[in-house]
């Protein structure tokens, strides 16, 4: 098998807190927020990898590290067979683009769609200058917006339409990897479906590789080929989507799954899925980071930090839990499938 499009090894992103000059000089009591704390990740060409977790688990930070918006503190990012330098050039940046969560702040309010797209096409010489306009129209067409939208300002669009413009902007540079950071969570339910369907069809049409960051398990299941579950800065479970939903190995994944509200009345369990709040990323527990909320934690969990590894699960299914081999006590999930 060829090398995956993106391969991340032990990526870390730390943000220093209250770094006043005096503290920096002393170095001792420097507080550090470990947003991404040793992430290993691979994305194959043409696949959609889901990245789920609660807010503050570092999934957005990870996405921003990947597209080069943040310089990671440590770790290696290999992209298309080459290790990326800390500071990337324009050509490399172009190959990874991002769709942001908030459709209201992700477009420049003082630029029309034509200006936004045209600037990208011109600066990166994507097409010859005389074809920029035609290309803008094609891009809008691709995301299902008419040519009338070209000279509109962002405020003239609804949330769903803005998200389409955002997607068009990301696609303008013909990226190999699209990082979609919660692209639908700010939208109305009825509009979410249109954007999800759009991403789905674009992926088929353009052969895009997508990292889909989300907190909604049902959305992830609908969109992704594989899923990685993130907790407090680290991936705790990775599997193909059907395997993850049928046979979750990490207690956190099981909790996330049973916390999702069900459309079918009476389907939800009566017990609380995961107790308590996630600990602060400034003060990550020693040993297993999930043990403070884990229903099956034992003594060993406080001593050893479990590695992300395949237990007796399906190939490609890895979990970071000392008890991932034991039969899952949680509700195993059976869903009806409809065309």
């Amino acid at each position, binding site marked *: 098998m060829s090398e995956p499009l993106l391969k991340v090894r032990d990526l870390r992103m730390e943000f220093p807190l209250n770094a006043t000059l005096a503290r920096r000089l002393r170095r001792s009591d420097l507080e550090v927020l470990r947003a991404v704390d040793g992430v290993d990740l691979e994305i194959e060409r043409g696949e959609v990898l889901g990245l789920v977790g609660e807010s503050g688990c570092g999934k957005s930070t990870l996405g921003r590290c990947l597209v080069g918006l943040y310089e990671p503190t440590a770790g290696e990012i290999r992209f298309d067979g080459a290790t990326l330098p800390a500071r990337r050039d324009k050509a490399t940046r172009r190959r990874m683009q991002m769709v942001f969560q908030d459709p209201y702040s992700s477009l420049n309010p003082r630029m029309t769609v034509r200006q936004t797209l045209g600037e990208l096409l011109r600066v990166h010489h994507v097409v010859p200058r005389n074809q920029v306009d035609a290309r803008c129209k094609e891009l809008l067409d691709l995301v299902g917006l008419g040519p009338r939208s070209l000279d509109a300002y962002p405020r003239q669009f609804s949330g769903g339409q803005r998200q389409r413009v955002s997607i068009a902007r990301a696609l303008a540079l013909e990226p190999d990897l699209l990082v979609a950071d919660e692209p639908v969570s700010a939208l109305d*339910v009825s509009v979410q*479906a249109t954007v999800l369907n759009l991403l789905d069809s674009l992926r088929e049409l353009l052969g895009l590789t997508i990292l889909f960051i989300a907190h909604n398990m*049902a959305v992830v299941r609908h969109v992704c080929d594989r899923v990685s579950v993130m907790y407090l800065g680290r991936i705790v479970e990775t599997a193909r989507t059907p395997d993850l939903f049928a046979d979750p190995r990490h207690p956190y994944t099981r909790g996330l799954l049973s916390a999702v509200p069900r*459309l079918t009345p009476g389907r939800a369990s009566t017990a609380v899925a995961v107790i308590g709040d996630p600990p602060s990323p400034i003060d990550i527990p020693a040993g297993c980071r999930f043990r403070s909320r884990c229903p099956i934690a034992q003594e060993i969990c406080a001593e050893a930090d479990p590695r992300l590894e395949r237990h007796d699960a399906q190939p490609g299914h890895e979990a970071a839990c000392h008890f991932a081999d034991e039969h899952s006590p949680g509700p195993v999930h059976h*869903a009806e499938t409809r065309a």
Partner: protein
Amino acid sequence: MSEPLLEVRDLSVEITLSRGTIHAVDGVSFALEPGAAMGLVGESGCGKSMTLRAILGLLPRPGRITAGQVLFNGKDLVKGGQRGLREVRGGSISMIFQEPMTALNPVMRVGDQIAEGPRYHLGWSRSAARDRALELMRMVGIPDPRRRMRAYPHELSGGLRQRVMIAIALSSEPQLILCDEPTTALDVTIQDQILKLLQALRRDLGVAIVFVTHDLAVIAQTCETLAVMYAGRVVETGRVEQMFREPHHPYTLGLLRSVPDFDVVRDSLEAIPGMPPDLASTFTACRFAPRCQFAQDDCLAGEVNLREIDGGRSVACLHDDACAAAASADPVIARV
């Protein structure tokens, strides 16, 4: 059937802006029995939050109630004016908001905020109110309440803040709690905790709940009855299970089909095409007709009003049979 606790009759809310008058809520009616839980769903801008706010007279500035009654224990809150409202506000009716950070006073300790209700509304002494606050914090599952009492809102996590909000809502022993998207800003695991807390409180205290949300799955878990709102009107009401199993209004069906569900996995989601209408315009046809897959010529003849069908349900659709048939041919929710 017992006397309803809350009855909203033909409620209309208008917002007057420079570009015209927006009919945010247009003739909404529903009733709620003591201890019952009702959901109010719809897209943003459909008037669900406005309806909820109108019940307590908490409309944002240019908005006002132009018609209708809000009967609480048989007393009309609209006619009662500000004085009548102040009596029930934070007394027999309390409210929980979406964003607990902005709904809590940032410079007041949470213990004092919870104790404020008993002191102000029930005239309790300082120490009695404090004990009550402690008891409430335990009841809503705040760990280490003695220490947390002295905390300021910003020192608490989102989930704990929402628990504090619920404790405040419970402090005056209300008969009804109005919830305005109380879990939308929270993570799934925390949402799950809060929903289960609300269910437990309802079971133990017998308090009635009106639950405004855009998330149908949340409704499925918390409410028995449901009113679906579209463009300022109620388009379908009934019992949640029946409505989800066999929706009679195409909009309800559309909402159900557009969300990816856990128990039923589909290849592609069905979006509702188009956008909701501008509420400043006047309507001469079914408001949903332009987006409706079942629409016929007669839908354009005039506004379609809510009418009762069997099973205690009401629907505002001329072709509800076609919709129900389509829904039962391809059920939205899992067979039990």
